């Protein structure tokens, strides 16, 4: 957890403005769980309004919900906290549909929410691990660019991965 959150005053509030103009008032200790915001706070110092032109309000709200939960859990006693966070993380991603997951991941990446990126990429992995090659191409908007025979060759070499 970022150590700066415990050394700075915990009551300071930041205003975060999403691309669609929606604003969020958040405690600094919560918002600085996001690397990008932490950097802005450290660089710009006194600036209380932070504009985030690459994230829309819906997803910024979700990212901040996650930050808030983790910031709160971490202020409790250490014991069993990891387990509580894990439990809550599971719930957080359980019912995310693919579209929300994608935009949330892009937002978390843009805001350098490393831990949230971990959780979301794990969720993507859990959704695609059993998928066929063709399904992956479709989901990730990828066209096969292999020359005739190349794909067959790779498939042959890794035949156990297709069983």
């Amino acid at each position, binding site marked *: 957890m970022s150590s700066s959150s415990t050394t700075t005053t915990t009551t300071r509030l930041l205003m975060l403005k999403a691309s669609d103009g929606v604003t969020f008032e958040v405690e600094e200790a919560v918002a600085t769980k996001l690397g990008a915001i932490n950097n802005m706070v450290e660089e710009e110092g006194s600036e209380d309004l932070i504009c985030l032109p690459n994230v829309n309000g819906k997803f910024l709200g979700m990212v901040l919900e996650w930050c808030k939960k983790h910031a709160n859990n971490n202020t409790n006693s250490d014991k069993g906290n990891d387990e509580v966070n894990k*439990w809550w*993380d599971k719930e957080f991603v359980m019912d995310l*549909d693919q579209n929300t997951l*994608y935009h949330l*991941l892009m937002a978390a*990446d843009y805001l350098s929410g490393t831990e949230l990126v971990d959780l979301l*990429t*794990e969720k993507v992995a859990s959704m695609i691990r059993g998928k066929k090659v063709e399904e992956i191409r*479709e989901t990730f908007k990828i066209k096969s660019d292999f020359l005739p025979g190349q794909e067959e060759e790779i498939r042959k070499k890794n035949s156990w*991965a297709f069983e």
Partner: protein
Amino acid sequence: MAAMSSCSYDVPEAMVVEIFSWLPPKSLNRFKCVCKSWNSLVTSLTSNPAFVAKHLRNAHNNVLSPKSLLILREYWIPTPVFVPSDSHDDMYDLNLLLLNLSNDDGEKEEIHSSDEELRVDNPLGGGYLSGIECFQMMETAIFGAMFYHCDGIICFAAPRKTMLWNPALHKSKLLPLPTHAYHFQVNRAVARTGFGYDPVDSDYKVLRMWFDDIELIEIYSLNTDTYREIKVGFDKRRDCNKVEHKMQVCHQGICYWFLSEGENVTNMILSFDLHAEKFHFILLPGPMKPCKTLEVWNDSVAYISSSGCRGGTEPIEMWVMECCSRGVSDSSSWIKYLSIVPQAGVLRPLTFWESDELLLGGTNDEFFVSYNLRTQKFRKLVIHRANRMLYLGSYVESLVSVNRRG
């Protein structure tokens, strides 16, 4: 996902790499066929030590995929009525099973498991070995062999041969013969083995100890692919015979064995530091109990024990080794973490399959419960093919190669 076919996403490569770091080796290899760039990305990542290490960390920390246990069991093939009754030799075989446990719904009373059979990849090339063929290849009887697991690599140690195997990569290899071939010609030499990862050298090591008329301790390094004899500083003749055949656990480069003398229990465990190449004796928090295990829990070594009595009202106790001692000092101290009053029929602590889920065994081969450390609830755990179980241990799928160098 219903929207699956209509949605496509443009995911930046850095995020693709993050996603890959959570995928099992089988999916990664399959996805090489997606396109040229994924093929070269997977190929370069899976041979990149930093990525392999990250992938391994994720495999240990994942919260969204099922956890695995490895089971070796013996099973009897029903003899067809027309087979003459003197052909008893071929009536059993061995299963190596991967048991997948899903912890999706903590509210349910019962934890469901599914198992899949693991076929042993033949280290001599091409194809698979059945359980029994594998033991034949290793020139050992079932009870002469030990299984250890570390970071996705299974070490199969028999008196004459040792094999390292990564089932997720379908790669296995036989280790070279130790320098003292003498010990392989005489069957009576019994080896104690240890296997684990030395974080200082970034190396996987196998320790082999003989103490017959000749005392010998050798250590194998995967990075150099050779054995080396080592000199140790404890009374081998006096102490080695007390080392229990099976190594319990390896944590942070230190292997641990229980010490016992025949029927007499001791209150000691033996540790060996794979890097410093030193043995230490560690005092247990009390007399050793008949049902016991050493486990890695919360990045520490935990000692869990029970008296295993049929009546079963004595608690199962869990002690955690203090971090600072890390098994390298002769005076380690233990902190009592918890005491579990067992449910009726629960006798033996077996292993952790999640950081907060302890698997406990019952009065017979087929009764298991899982105890949750956080909620303190017992849940029934059904293992369909659990009878005649010879080995049970944790397992993660990893990209760690058994052919690594340096």
